[in-house]
């Protein structure tokens, strides 16, 4: 290992395994899925569900974000460490939103 330079050290770890490009057909399907979910979001917001409105909105938003991140941003084909880091961001977001509801949920 004595001749590896800093640059080589980076490259060594960064060996990306290339994957087959996704077909247009598939990407189009994902896009259609996103459109459907958006329509659902709008539709659900017009029904009075009380606190469930928030749950539905966040759930749908989470589903849409997952589609974008997994397929458009290729997270599905990355290794576990990248997945873990993205997952961590979502956990932090969930905690932030959850703790905010300790206020909002009990305010009145």
């Amino acid at each position: 290992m004595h001749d590896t330079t800093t640059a080589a050290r980076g490259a060594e770890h960064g060996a990306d395994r290339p994957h087959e490009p996704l077909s247009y057909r598939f990407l189009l399907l994902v896009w259609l899925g996103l459109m459907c979910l958006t329509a659902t979001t709008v539709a659900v917001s017009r029904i009075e569900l009380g606190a469930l409105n928030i749950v539905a909105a966040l759930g749908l938003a989470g589903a849409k974000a997952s589609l974008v991140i997994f397929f458009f941003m290729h997270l599905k084909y990355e290794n576990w460490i990248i997945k873990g880091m993205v997952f961590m961001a979502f956990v932090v977001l969930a905690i932030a939103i959850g703790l905010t509801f300790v206020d909002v949920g009990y305010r009145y």
Partner: protein
Amino acid sequence: MEHTAQDPHERPFFAPSGKGGLASWIFSTDHKRIGLLYLGLIMLMFSVAVVLGLLLRLKLMTPGNTLLTPQQYNAIFTLHGVIMVFMVVIPSIPASFGNIFLPLHIGANDVSFPRLNNFSWWLYVTGLVLALVSIFTGNGPPDTGWTFYVPFSEHTTTNVSIAVIAVFVLGFSSILTGLNFITTVHRLRTPGMTWRKLPLFVWSLYATGWIQVLATPILGITALLIFSERVLHLGLFDPGRGGDPLLYQHLFWIYSHPAVYIMILPAMGVISEIIPVFSRKPVFGYNMIAFSSLAIAFAGSLVWAHHMFTSGMSDNAVLLFSFLTFVVAIPSAIKVFNWLSTMYKGSISLDPPLLFSLGFILMFSIGGLTGLVLGSAGTDIHVHDTYFVVAHFHYVIFGGTGLGMFAAMHYWFPKVFGRMYDHTRAFWSFWIILLGMNVLYFPMFVMGLQGMPRRYYDYLPQYAPLQMVSTWGSWILAVGLILMFHNLYRGCRYGPVATKNPWGGATLEWTLPTPLPAEAFYGDPVAPEPYDYKGVNPDG
């Protein structure tokens, strides 16, 4: 000393390498040059904000309508806060000394993404320019305070829109620095540099990097939301349009509380480097110091609503966030006890870097303990939005991060510039700064307990004596700062040539030539035990 050698392993990193003068700096991808660029601008902005702070204190020396108009006063405390928080303290140690020493500490020749590093500096410059624009155009500088609280920030006619965009851009600069550091620590460690051999400065920057990456986007979103509220009148925060002003406070503090850990963790890392070197003893409780950095980063992200106890938030939330705030005190205290235990029975030499570090411990402890008064919901009701908060914050951030930054400057100065400053002057500047800080800020604790509200232009006669003392303190502090910067400048220009390892540090940067060469390591250096001083001695 003449440096004629063209070998990048010999030539100092700041010596011209042939092509382009200015361009070889501002477009440099060398982490050391970028670190110095940051240091220069940060210190420039620091001086500007110090002058604004002195002006505020000068106005407050006497009650009544003197020196500044109320509108000017509001604008100046806003600018003082915005500049200090977003342009000085947040980038301070990571962007300057972190950039220079994080790669060297782990045996790498640069960060993972050198160009991104340069780009983040340019984003920083863009943020500065936007902030300048917000001061001199439109209806004048923002007058909201650095917190941009709604609904006032939505309705004021001053230039808030551009200022929040400046904050947005500065946030991006911070995110990129954090991202770069995380990746660098994961991927560029020299073989044998295991996680438990990382210098504690690296651990603290790693924890900071995670906060920068995870929390700063929320600041960006919040800034954009304020902007869209002002421009599009969406009605998110404005109760007049069905919005919720508390939502703004949540969003703002979800970033801005963790941001105080972006400010303090790197300083704690510096202190963890300096204390063992000047005590000639391995650091006490390495694992706990490293772990407490991560614990602070995590637990510190869960306490933001302690800024909102009097805002009308639900009582359940008050209870929960007060409890969580007490939890964060634990890892902070772990660090303080570990530093003191490191010094216990050590062979201590009171050189300037250690003095500033001890100043850090003193001021941080006062600031931290008074933070518990604020974190405990019952007492906070009485001192919320008083000078008590201002005193607490300045003890932690100026007494803590500020002195930590000065400690770093005195510690790494010989390694970066290749010369040594005058120790007697450094000694005096330290004591004058410490005295000035305490005369300036301690009366604010007392005034706060007596009920003096923060950000007020005028005050009742009963506060006049302590307001006067506090202003004297600001002058003492200014003298100390001038003496310190003058001493460092003189050292940089005319000081005696520094040796390779003047303090006897065991981390990798001290194995390199002084001043730092353009190209640090030949191949991969052997990972040292960072706090083992057997056979490592000061050579100065």
